[in-house]
């Protein structure tokens, strides 16, 4: 597999690089570390007043890539490239297309809480316009949040909808690549009752408990049609908020969470839904966002 890391010479860039290295090692794939430099005006400005600044950016990009080289173990087959583009997202997309990469690895906003993923401008642009799997490194992954051992398990967030079946199949293929068991996870967020009515104070618990039963029944039915050799299991998170619900189930230190997309389209783009956004933000492990496969 070929991984493209969107690298910047700061803590979030290092998070993405650490995850990219880990994934490349696990799959014995190839790594491309790409630093995108802002496009200057020198091509159109007659005075070429931006040339110095352009040179400065190129030097900085080279320094950043030199730093990255120090982090990547020597046994990994890696390429280091710097590109200019109008935006980082545009540059990464173009590079991914040209080099036919299989997965992109990026990090989120520098602002945020350790372990969580706050989508920044680049992540937003990529997640909403890309047709590639995107691995998301949580904040602080390069420090004490990184994988401490080979991947132990792959989790896949499903909603139980019809679209979840395609995602489950894709997740099974990824689990085969990583040679790890697959766990399906889904999350119940218990709403506050709208107001006391004759339906009682806990009417919403009744609804969620029914949903849990529905999910378990659908999972039992789905396992009968599961064709992959990858061992599977189901776990349901439960809480009053997304954060509480996601953290209510156990997570391995070396685990990857697969999140699907919510909308299909002829361009098979990644389009993040409201629930997927919450899961991506609060998940306790790195996330892998898969675009919807064409049926």
């Amino acid at each position: 597999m070929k991984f493209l890391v969107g690298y910047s010479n700061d803590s979030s860039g290092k998070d993405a690089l650490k995850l990219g290295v880990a994934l490349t090692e696990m799959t014995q794939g190839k790594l491309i570390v790409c630093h995108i430099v802002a496009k200057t005006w020198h091509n159109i400005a007659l005075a070429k007043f931006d040339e110095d600044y352009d040179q400065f950016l190129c030097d900085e990009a080279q320094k950043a890539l030199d730093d990255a080289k120090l982090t990547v173990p020597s046994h990994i087959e890696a390429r280091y490239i710097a590109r200019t583009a109008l935006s980082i997202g545009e540059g990464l997309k173009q590079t991914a297309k040209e080099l036919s990469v299989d997965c992109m690895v990026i990090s989120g906003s520098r602002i945020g809480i350790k372990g969580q993923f706050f989508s920044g401008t680049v992540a937003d642009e990529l997640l909403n316009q890309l047709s590639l799997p995107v691995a998301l490194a949580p904040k602080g992954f390069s420090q004490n949040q990184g994988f401490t051992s080979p991947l132990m398990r792959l989790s896949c967030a499903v909603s139980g909808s019809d679209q979840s079946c395609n995602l489950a199949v894709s997740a099974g293929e990824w689990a085969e690549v990583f040679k790890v068991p697959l766990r399906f996870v889904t999350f119940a967020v218990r709403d506050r009752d709208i107001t006391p009515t004759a339906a009682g104070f806990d009417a919403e618990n009744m609804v969620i408990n029914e949903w849990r039963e529905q999910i378990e029944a659908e999972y039992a039915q789905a396992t009968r049609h599961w064709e992959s050799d990858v061992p599977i299991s189901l776990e349901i998170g439960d809480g009053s908020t997304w954060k509480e619900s996601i953290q209510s189930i156990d997570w391995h230190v070396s685990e990857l969470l697969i999140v699907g997309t919510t909308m299909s389209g002829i361009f098979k783009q990644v389009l993040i839904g409201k629930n997927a956004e919450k899961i991506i933000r609060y998940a306790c492990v790195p996330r892998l966002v898969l675009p919807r496969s064409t049926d």
Partner: protein
Amino acid sequence: MDTGGSMKNPVTFSQRLLRRKPVNFLVQETQQGGKTLKRSLTLFQLTMFGVGATIGTGIFFVLSEQVPVAGPAVLISFILAGITAGLTALCYAELSSMIPASGSSYSYAYATLGEGVAFLVAACLILEYGVSAAAVAIGWSEYLNNLIHNVFGVHLPDWLLSAPVVADGYKLYLGGTGLINLPAAILVFLCCMLLMRGVTESARINAVMVLIKLCVLILFISIAATAFNAEHLTPFSPHGFAGISAAAGSIFFTFIGLDAVSTAGEEVENPRRNLPLAIICALFVVIIFYILVALTALGAQEQGLFKGQQAGLAVILQEITGSTWPAIILAAGAVISVFSITLVVLYGQTRILFAMSRDGLAPKIFHRVSTKTLTPNANTLIVAVIVSIIAGFIPADVLWDLTSMGTLIAFAVVSIGVLVLRYRMPDAPRGFKVPLFPALPILSICACLYLISSLSAIVYVIAAIWAAIAAAYYFLCASKNSVLEAGSEAYSHQNGDDHQ
């Protein structure tokens, strides 16, 4: 008589009617992931819940219907209806305190009085909630029209604002001035969409709307009080006690929501003290609000002008001030807050049907939960379609009376249940016991029956048709699909001789 069942375990007709849902099933259904969530509501919080859930239902529209019936003595009708609601709420509180879980009066009746009574209570609740949602939506359309007129200077066409059906004696027939009450039907669908999005959003919006509702009523009281003329209150009771009791029966629906306080048995601190106190305090606050609104409205406007008045409170303010802005504020407040009332009532309706469906007493589609929003979308949509048809085509006065009928029957059954259970299960633990037993439950039953007797003739016809449909559905379908039927051996084992 044996009505069927499996060959191995035949279930008799009387067993079906009397079988009770095991309490542990009720507890499991409402627990959060295997753990019980304790809310520990204080007396103040519970009182405010009660006020928020009760106040507003109908006060915006009821005067134009009931002042012509009772005259200024409608004030006494409010007190009569309020006292009846209070008595039944206390009985309801005892029933709910026998079950260590939060639920509806349907689920409490199922666990204590048996499937037959529970189904009857549920049928009444469906009538109460479904019809009152439609009735409230019709009142909303009046205020919307008033608001549009005051802001833009145009009226919505009459054929879009009233039902084509009219009531006369025992009959409903086509002959109204309108084609459909379109705003009312649209409101029901707007609420449906909000409920389908997820309840957290709805709960937040609802809390704001309750505040708006209270502010609007305070605004009305403050302005209308400045134009108070005591001469408008005479004659005080032009139609005597018959008028007062007839109005009290119809007004009873304005106290829907008070019963919700009674479901808080497991959630409240020191329920033996706080539950009755919260019911009484909430009732007191609501009655005071209603009486102040009615009194100031009656003092500000001659009683003859109430008849047929649409968006009455807004019109009164406009007459008093000679300016449109107070009417605009009041109409806008009413449009927003009545939206919340419709939302809450529709919510209650869907959750009661959900509970019934889980028990096998309503079609399965009612407990199908959407995986996307974690809400029962199909249930909500079906309820919205039916309620919007009622709101669009049936006149409001019939609906108010039907709502009262459903509520009063359900409450009377609960009060009878309290009496029965005191004799049948005297030692069962109760978090709260009705004081002055057996006088209070008997008084509650009598008050309910008295108010039922004052309702209009057409309501009896519709209620009888509804009862016949419900009974047919129960005997032909629901009783055989009941989860207690499917697992009768397991349930018999758990309940032992409780079935008898």
